[in-house]
C-alpha cells in the first residue's frame, strides 16, 4: 500500500515583526495555499491548525480559529501542539486521515506572533515545571543550550567560530531572493564575529530571532490530485514524529539533566539521529538520495549537528563538508536553501510547515533565485521541547 499523499498547494505569510493577530497571518497563508492548489475552501474536508500557545484562547484552538476566519464550511477539525514540531504533527494528522480514507482534501495552517527577546516560560511559581525551574535555579536560556552544543563541537571536533559564522554567511546568501524571508541582506563573517557574544561561543548573529509568520499546505490523496489534473504532484513520502528512546543521553531543552545510561545502556541512535532515521525507514529512501535539506538552524552550530544527525555526513565531518562548499546552493547537498531560520527567525507553529513549503517549491523547480538544480528528494528536520521531534521526507 502506498503511504504517499500529495502536496497540492503551499503558501506563506512573509516572516517579520508585523504586530498583527496570528489569525491574519494564518488566513493569508491558507488562502495562498488554496490558490496554489486551485482548490476552493469549501472543498476542504479537514482543517488542522498548529497551536499558537502564547497568544490567547483563539491560539489554543487554532484549527477552529482559522476555520471560522475562513468561514465555517463544516470541515472536520483538529489542533496540534508539539512545540517546534507542531507543524509536522499537524501535517501528520492530516496525512493519517487522508491515508485512512477519512478525508481527501486537508488544509494545514500554522501561524504565530512572538514577543521580543528571550523566549521565557509561563508566569507564576511552578516548582514542578522543568521549563520554569531551568530559569529560576540556573538562569538557563534557550541560547545557553545551543551554546552547549556549539562548545562541544569546538572541543571535540575542532569547529571554530569562523565555521559557525560561515553557516550564517551561507544562509544569509541563500535567503537573499526569498520573498518570505525576514532578513534579506548579505552578512559577512566579520559581522557575525564582531556581534556581541550572547552565550559563549555564540554571537548574536549565530542565534535565530523570533518572528511573526505563517505557512500552510493543502494535502490531498494522490488519487484526488490525479482527478484534479495533477499527474505528478510533489508527494509526502514519510512523516517522522518520534519520541526519544530511553535513555536520552544528550542534554535536551528544557531538562536539567539527561537520563542515566548506567542500567539501560546507550541507545543505538541519539534522539536527533533517530528523527530522520525514522523518516528514511518509512519511505525506503536513504540520505544518499537527498538533494536538499531544510533543518532547524536555531543556531549556526546546530545546523552542523543536524547535517550529521540526518546522515549527510558522519559525526565530526560537518565542518569539512561546510568548508568544501557542499552545503551551499550549487554544492553537493544544499542545506537551508530557503535561508533557514537565520533569515526567517522563528514562528514556532509555522516553522515545520514552512520547511515543507520550501521543499515543495524546490522539488517543483519554483524556488526562484535559490533553486537547487535537479532537486528530486528533500528532507526537513526539527526538534521541539519535551521530546518532540519531526522530519518530513518529500519527493517528486
Amino acid at each position: 500500500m502506498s503511504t504517499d499523499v500529495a502536496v497540492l498547494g503551499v503558501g506563506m505569510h512573509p516572516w517579520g515583526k508585523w504586530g498583527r493577530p496570528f489569525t491574519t497571518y494564518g488566513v493569508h497563508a491558507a488562502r495562498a495555499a488554496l490558490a496554489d492548489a486551485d482548490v476552493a475552501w469549501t472543498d476542504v474536508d479537514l482543517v488542522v491548525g498548529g497551536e499558537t500557545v502564547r497568544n490567547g484562547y483563539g491560539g489554543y484552538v487554532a484549527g477552529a480559529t482559522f476555520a471560522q476566519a475562513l468561514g465555517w464550511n463544516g470541515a472536520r477539525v483538529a489542533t496540534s501542539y508539539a512545540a517546534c514540531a507542531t507543524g509536522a504533527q499537524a501535517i501528520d494528522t492530516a496525512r493519517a486521515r487522508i491515508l485512512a480514507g477519512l478525508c481527501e482534501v486537508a488544509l494545514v495552517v500554522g501561524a504565530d506572533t512572538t514577543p521580543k527577546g528571550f523566549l521565557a516560560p509561563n508566569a507564576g511559581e511552578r516548582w514542578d515545571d522543568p521549563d520554569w525551574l531551568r530559569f529560576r535555579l540556573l538562569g538557563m536560556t534557550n541560547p545557553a543550550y545551543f551554546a552547549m552544543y556549539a562548545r562541544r563541537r569546538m572541543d571535540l571536533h575542532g569547529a571554530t567560530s569562523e565555521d559557525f559564522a560561515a553557516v550564517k554567511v551561507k544562509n544569509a546568501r541563500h535567503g537573499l531572493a526569498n520573498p518570505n524571508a525576514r532578513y534579506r541582506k548579505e552578512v559577512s563573517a566579520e559581522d557575525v564575529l564582531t556581534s556581541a557574544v550572547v552565550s559563549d561561543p555564540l554571537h548574536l548573529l549565530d542565534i535565530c530571532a523570533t518572528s511573526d509568520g505563517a505557512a500552510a499546505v493543502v494535502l490531498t490523496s494522490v488519487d484526488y490530485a490525479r482527478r484534479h489534473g495533477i499527474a505528478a504532484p510533489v508527494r509526502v513520502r514519510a512523516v517522522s514524529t518520534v519520541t526519544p528512546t530511553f535513555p536520552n543521553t544528550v542534554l535536551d531543552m528544557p531538562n536539567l539533566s539527561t537520563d542515566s545510561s548506567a542500567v539501560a545502556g546507550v541507545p543505538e541512535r541519539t534522539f536527533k539521529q533517530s528523527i530522520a532515521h525514522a523518516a528514511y525507514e518509512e519511505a525506503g529512501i536513504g540520505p544518499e538520495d537527498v538533494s536538499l535539506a531544510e533543518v532547524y538552524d536555531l543556531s549556526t552550530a546546530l545546523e552542523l549537528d543536524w547535517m550529521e544527525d540526518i546522515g549527510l555526513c558522519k559525526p565530526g565531518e560537518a565542518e569539512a563538508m561546510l568548508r568544501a562548499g557542499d552545503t551551499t546552493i550549487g554544492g553537493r547537498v544544499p542545506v537551508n536553501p530557503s535561508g533557514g531560520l537565520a533569515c526567517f527567525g522563528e514562528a514556532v507553529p509555522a516553522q515545520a510547515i514552512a520547511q515543507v513549503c520550501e521543499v515543495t517549491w524546490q522539488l517543483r523547480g519554483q524556488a526562484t533565485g535559490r533553486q537547487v538544480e535537479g532537486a528530486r528528494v528533500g528532507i526537513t528536520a526539527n526538534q521541539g521541547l519535551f521530546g518532540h521531534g519531526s522530519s518530513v521526507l518529500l519527493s517528486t
Partner: protein
Amino acid sequence: MTATPATPAIEGWFTTGAAAALVGARCTTCTTVFFPRSSSGAGPDGHGFCRNPACAGEEFEDVELSRRGRVWSYTDAQYQPPPPYLAPGSPGDAYEPFALAAVELPEGLVVLGQVAQGYGVRDLHVGAEVELVVETLYADETGDRTIWRWKPVVELGEEADQ
C-alpha cells in the same frame, strides 16, 4: 545583615555541609538513578513511575550522587536571563555574567549547573574534572537561598600561576 541561616532554593535536591551532594532517586526495582526527582518520574515522596521503559518500578530510594564528574560542555550567560531568574545582590546592581556547565557523573547521567563563583568559561574544557559545591543563588525574605554549582578541580601545580 541578619544571621538568618541559608536554605536551599529548592527542597530535597541536594545536601549541604562539607561534602554536599546532589540527591538522586534510585528505582528499587531496576536501580536506574534519576535526577532531579519530579512529579512525572521518581517522585519526591519515594513513589512514582520508573522512566525506564523495561521497568514497572514505582518505589524509589534517595541516593547521593558522585560529587565529582567531567564536563560534557559549558557556556555562559552574558545577558541577564528573563524571570523567573532572580539576579543575586540588590535591585539596581549591575548584571554579572555567570558560567554554566553540563557535567557527566559516574552514575551515567549529565547534570546541568552554574559554575562556582570566580570561575568562567576560560577555566573549563570538555572532559575537565569538576566538583560540586553549594553557594548562594539569590536572597529573598527568608534570607540566602543556595544552589549546587560546579567548581573546576585545579590540579596540583596549576595554582602556582595565581
